[in-house]
């Protein structure tokens, strides 16, 4: 069933259009930086963006920082929200279930296909940003990179940590994927499920900016998203990264469980 879901994901024009759109903003940023040569001052703006004018190979990380807060989760919400509700809308859910495909297998396959989408999207952003960084932006040091903490990282360390950062970003989307999947079992409208998920994201972001919400902040889904920057400190500061992964796994367990609880006995009337 996972294979079938992957075929569906990959044959859908929407998947590729979404990935293309995800790359649009980093590309625009790269072009603007290359033309104007005006980077943000260090410590302001998206992470790593101030450094890319000197070292273009850092641009994949900057691009991730650009898409992570909004574009990537919105894309995940759209793809995840479509999981079950989209099958309802194309009148195909009932035909899958009477094949029969067990409801549990279907949910698992849907979740896997959303995660595969995240991996594809993140990889695409990284590759496109790397090429842009190389072509348009600074081509300074091949010897090593200055870490966020000020010391120098070797090229090998850099590659390793960049890999970790990408894994972290993929994991950071698990919560969004699980929530979108849950909403997708609640409603017959794929758009409704996506908007509901985006609503949760916005709420999480708003609460993060509110002092009165200090007590619940550690549990907010978006709290640790940008913690991937900590991977580039010397030595790596694991605290927030680990908390971030644990938070995502918590969301995954709760909402994937809720999706199953709701879908297992749901009357499929459409």
């Amino acid at each position: 069933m996972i294979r079938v879901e992957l075929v569906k994901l990959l044959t859908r024009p929407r998947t590729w259009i979404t990935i293309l759109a995800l790359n649009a903003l980093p590309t625009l940023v790269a072009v603007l930086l290359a033309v104007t040569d005006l980077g943000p001052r260090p410590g302001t703006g998206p992470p790593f963006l101030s450094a890319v004018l000197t070292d273009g190979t850092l641009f994949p990380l900057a691009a991730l920082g650009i898409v992570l807060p909004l574009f990537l989760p919105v894309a995940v919400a759209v793809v995840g929200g479509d999981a079950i509700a989209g099958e309802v809308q194309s009148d195909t859910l009932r035909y899958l279930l009477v094949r029969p495909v067990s409801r549990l297998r279907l949910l698992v396959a849907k979740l896997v296909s959303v995660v595969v989408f995240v991996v594809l999207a993140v990889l695409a952003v990284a590759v496109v940003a790397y090429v842009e960084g190389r072509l348009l932006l600074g081509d300074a040091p091949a010897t090593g990179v200055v870490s966020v903490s000020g010391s120098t990282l070797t090229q090998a360390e850099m590659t390793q940590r960049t890999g970790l950062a990408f894994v972290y970003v993929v994991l950071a989307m698990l919560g969004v994927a699980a929530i979108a999947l849950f909403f997708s079992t609640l409603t017959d409208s794929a758009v409704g499920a996506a908007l509901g998920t985006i609503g949760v994201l916005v709420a999480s972001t708003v609460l993060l900016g509110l002092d009165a919400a200090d007590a619940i902040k550690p549990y907010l889904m978006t709290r640790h998203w940008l913690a991937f920057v900590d991977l580039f400190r010397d030595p790596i500061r694991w605290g927030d990264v680990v908390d971030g992964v644990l938070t995502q796994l918590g969301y995954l367990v709760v909402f994937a469980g809720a999706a199953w609880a709701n879908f297992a006995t749901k009357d499929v009337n459409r």
Partner: protein
Amino acid sequence: MSELLIATHGLTKVYRGGVTAVDHVDLEVRAGDVYGFLGANGSGKTTTVRMLLGLVLATEGGIELFGEAMPKAGASVLPRVGALVEGPGAYPHLSGRANLTLLDSTDGRRRRGDRRRRVGEVLEQVGLDPADRRPVRTYSLGMRQRLGLASALLRRPPLLVLDEPTNGLDPQGIREMRELLLSLNRAGTTIFLSSHLLAEIEQMSSRVGVLDRGRLVLQEDLATLQAPTGLVRVRTPDLSTALRLLDGQVVDRGEGHLVVRSPDAAALNAHLVARDVRVTELGPERRSLEEIVLAASESA
């Protein structure tokens, strides 16, 4: 009694909010039947079909397909059932062939080797092979309906559960669908056919169940229902002679015809002709399915 492929016992569905969609229905569909499941829109047909297939969970009562309890035995039973439920469904951006291939590959155990052949066969069977590579979004409703039937036939199932299968087809398409289903039935496929179209059921079914506001008000073999009523309709230009001859047997008379109580239409015909009454038309009266359904619904 032959084997029951579908049996329900006191099948009931009460939706949230207290609407009783299906009310203690006891279906009996035997192997080999073309079972016509009749009911007006909103009578609970589709809810019943969905419960049979495990899509909707019954509030009360039991369902057996092939003698196994549904929905518990779904994994072993449903591969033997081909279904078309309330309109076809397909991914619009994929071709008809790609849709069938995708559906066929949800079944991990089937060998991939003859998938292409299986898909090709059902496409040809429903007459969709000229359009198999066009995306489904360009299909007409009738073509989608054919595609839906093709997906129901993919596994060559011994039982077909079809909800309004001729919906959206033109007269030619309806005729082809009917011939296809009847030929499948002759080859041994049991067909459970739900429809609100009396004529369709009357033309195809061997057995009829009538659902009225959620209750099964009638379930009987069509041949039994339409057995001669013991009345014969006679049309003749010599009305007054005939009336005189058949005094006491005439139940009803109309413009140029009589309705006569007679156990044997042939004997009646011989009797009339022997006495120089010219007969233009003569035949045993049968009740139409429409009359039967209306009577059953009224008495319920």
